């Protein structure tokens, strides 16, 4: 059974989540192929061909794919589906947007955000914000799957020697066009790929406090900045920083939760982090029940102290 993974990229770089999806695809058994769709994305295809475990890269390179829309990407996948037993993508906003469109066209019930492969037709996926894990068996002959990237160790970025095969673009019927994109310019690592994440909650009290107290520490640690839904709802942080059920899932080596009470919807998005640090002045906050290291303190005192300690490299090392 051949398996096809939809690559995610920004026009230049293959997004790391793609390699997590490739790792999940490899567990399904068959040869793994990668579909790269875009315009002038030869470099992305080269990067895909180098990923360990990929046998073939299909490259649909065409001006119509300069901006990737579900309406243009889905017909390519449905056109290729006949040759594949399973179609996968990372459960990013790109994958979540495109894949159900493919599944419905194929009359397949998609399996969203799998976090484990039990067998080629049986998967584990979180439901109720991760408060329960459902083991589901698909009765569809062909599987359409999105993958929770943090649940799978990524395939190695090198070692593969896949052939790159150009394919023709597919026609699209829907009348839709791209207008503009406004991406947050940031030197920091991507939230879902960062090895350290520092997140603020409602306790931050303002957007200014995020930049005054959280961001300097993030920059020193090389960390990504996250936020709880409460902080996003209150306007303290942009929505694409949101960690949790309705935002992003992260599983960094170190997750620092500042002024976050630890609602179950937030825990759903960061509970798989290796080490969790909680800084909160409320010692009964639920976040302390999952934290490896808890500091009961006023964040407006603790964060400047932390920043100062990080200013003095090595003074604390043993």
């Amino acid at each position, binding site marked *: 059974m051949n398996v096809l993974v939809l690559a995610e990229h920004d026009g230049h770089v293959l997004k790391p989540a793609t390699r997590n999806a490739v790792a999940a695809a490899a567990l399904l058994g068959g040869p793994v192929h990668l579909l790269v769709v875009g315009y002038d994305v030869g470099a992305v295809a080269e990067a895909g061909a180098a990923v360990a475990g990929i046998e073939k890269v299909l490259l649909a390179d065409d001006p119509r794919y300069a901006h990737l829309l*579900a309406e243009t990407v889905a017909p390519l996948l449905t056109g290729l589906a006949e040759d594949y037993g399973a179609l996968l993508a990372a459960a990013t906003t790109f994958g979540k947007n495109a894949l159900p*469109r493919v599944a419905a066209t194929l009359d*397949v019930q*998609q399996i969203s955000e799998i976090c484990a492969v039990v067998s080629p037709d049986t998967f584990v996926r979180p439901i109720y914000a991760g*408060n329960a894990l459902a083991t589901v*068996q698909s009765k569809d002959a062909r599987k359409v799957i999105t993958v929770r990237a943090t649940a799978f160790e990524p395939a190695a970025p090198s070692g593969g020697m896949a052939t790159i095969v150009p394919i023709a673009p597919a026609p699209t019927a829907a009348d*839709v066009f791209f207008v503009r994109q406004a991406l947050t310019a940031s030197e920091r690592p*991507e939230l879902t790929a960062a090895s350290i994440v520092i997140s603020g909650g409602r306790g931050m009290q303002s957007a200014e406090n995020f930049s005054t107290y959280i961001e300097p520490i993030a920059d020193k640690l090389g960390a990504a900045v996250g936020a709880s839904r409460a902080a996003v709802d209150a306007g303290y942080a942009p929505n694409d920083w949101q960690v949790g059920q309705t935002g992003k899932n992260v599983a960094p080596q170190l997750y620092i939760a500042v002024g976050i009470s630890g609602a179950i919807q937030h825990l759903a998005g960061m509970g798989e982090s290796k080490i969790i640090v909680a800084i909160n002045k409320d010692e009964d906050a639920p976040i302390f029940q999952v934290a490896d*290291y808890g*500091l009961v303190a006023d964040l407006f005192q603790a964060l400047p102290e932390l920043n100062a300690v990080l200013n003095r490299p090595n003074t604390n090392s043993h």
Partner: protein
Amino acid sequence: MRALVAVKRVIDYNVKIRVKADQSGVETANVKFSVNPFDEIAIEEAVRLKEAGIVSEVVAVSIGPSEAQEVLRSALALGADSAILVETNGETQPLAVAKILKALAVRQSPQLIILGKQAIDDDSNQTGQMLAALLGWPQGTFASKLVVKDGRAEVTREIDGGLETVSLALPAVVTTDLRLNEPRYANLPNIMKAKRKPFEIIPAADLGLDLAPRLITLRVDAPPKRQAGVKVPDVAALVDKLKTEAKVI
């Protein structure tokens, strides 16, 4: 122009979810149910379009058991003009829901169908996209802004890393993200008024669709519990632990 809004009855956001002892699912007995929060945002958006004179009629649709009438009453109290319940006691998965909504769209000819981006019970995030595919319509998912004019919908979407704006020809499907709007609360006069609005119940079987679940739930488990660690007295102790014990900085 007519707008269709899909509304799902789900376990309330604030209920602590418990997995059943026999691992067949989660406990639903004696549990509070409410409108899926993203669907409330969908209702609000449709009602605002009506108030702005862009939409002339808002039809709320739900699929589920008889009890789902309650969430439709909520939708009517928030400003929807009429409601349709497609009644079924079986499990309806996103593909089946999309098929039902397509059948209703063919009957109702809406120019806009607004749905929540995901339901907070199965967290699938599929139905809107599937419905758009089945209808052959464009889709504007995870919307944080919606502008309807000149036969098109300009949708600003929440994507990883920022925002993207797309222009869709109507009819189109839009799914809501959190920041699209802040839903209003229903007041008593509107709750009373809702009781007199048109309300249709259609047995799902009457639609003649293949609604059988394709995913069989073999078991449901509680997630592994994370153990609480230690409290540290101050920042210096915290940094020391992170450097020497956890070795993560």
